[in-house]
């Protein structure tokens, strides 16, 4: 039992000693990494500046994209670059409007006839309501019209 305990203890001690060694080695490497040649530092500087300017360009482009509706119009805008698509879209909108207007007109006529048969129409009419219920009255109106 004691032997096992000692073995585990030794292993743990070795591991922590190795880890300490590794940490010291990493620190030395880190210190050494701060002393690079002037050429390498210059190249790293250039690379960093490229990355930063790329990000700046992307972010400013993002702001313009969400800027205003006016960017859709004018020279070089989306509509200017896609004329065929724009014309097709406009023609489509006109056709749809025409179709909807026609449908609306058709739907309007039954409403008018419905209004003629409504209670308000009967009550406001010069004739009494019984006149409309009388079948003989219809015949009389037709013969009168002829």
């Amino acid at each position, binding site marked *: 039992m004691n032997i096992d305990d000692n073995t585990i203890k030794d292993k743990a001690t070795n591991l922590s000693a190795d880890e300490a060694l590794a*940490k010291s080695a*990493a*620190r030395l490497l880190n210190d050494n990494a701060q002393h690079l040649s002037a050429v390498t*530092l210059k190249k790293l500087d250039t690379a960093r500046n490229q990355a930063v300017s790329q990000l700046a360009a992307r972010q400013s482009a993002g702001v313009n994209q969400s800027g205003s509706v006016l960017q859709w119009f004018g020279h070089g805008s989306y509509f200017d670059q896609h004329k065929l698509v724009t014309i097709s879209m406009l023609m489509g909108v006109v056709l749809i409007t025409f179709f909807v207007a026609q449908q609306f007109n058709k739907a309007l006529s039954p409403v008018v006839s419905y209004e003629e048969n409504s209670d308000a129409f009967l009550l406001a009419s010069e004739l009494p309501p019984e006149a409309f219920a009388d079948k003989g009255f219809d015949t009389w109106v037709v013969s009168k019209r002829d």
Partner: protein
Amino acid sequence: MASPKELSDFLKTVERRAFKQTAYAVRDDHAALDIVQDAMLKLAEKYGNNPVEELPMLFQRILQNTMRDYWRRQKVRNLWTTLLSSFGNNHEDNEDHDPLETIDVEDDSDEPSAQLERSQTVKIIESALEKLPARQREAFILRYWEEMDVAETAKIMGCSDGSVKTHCSRAVHALAVELKKQGLDNLGLSNLVLNNPSS
């Protein structure tokens, strides 16, 4: 969202370490510079809108993936180079080499003997690090150099926490054995770290 200044500050803090880590892995300074540049551009392009706190982990992940891409390309290139080597000319042209360009900017506030000792130790460590298998080196760098925890390291390496612990343990053990072979123990390294004015 990270601002350009925040990104710049972050890259300033990691670029030197990233370069050295990549150089240990690919053993070619020019390729290491290209890889670090690629990683920086990818970070700005794809993750520039992420919060600043996420940048260290994302950058390490991109860096490791870019290194893997490099090794894949190298593998294919080496295959063709081997096949076509009989037609090639292997003379290296060193006429354009300028020693001033590669001279290290050393801190001369220290004693020359201590500087020499430290640079020799660093060379031994670098050599030991280069000898490690790629995954062990990756785990060692992320855990001990970048000081990331096991979960973060696992995420970057794309493996389980257990695998990270195994890689780290093996890397540390192999490194310790290699350094002890060269007569370096923990005490010696600690003294060097403590005596280093820049640490």
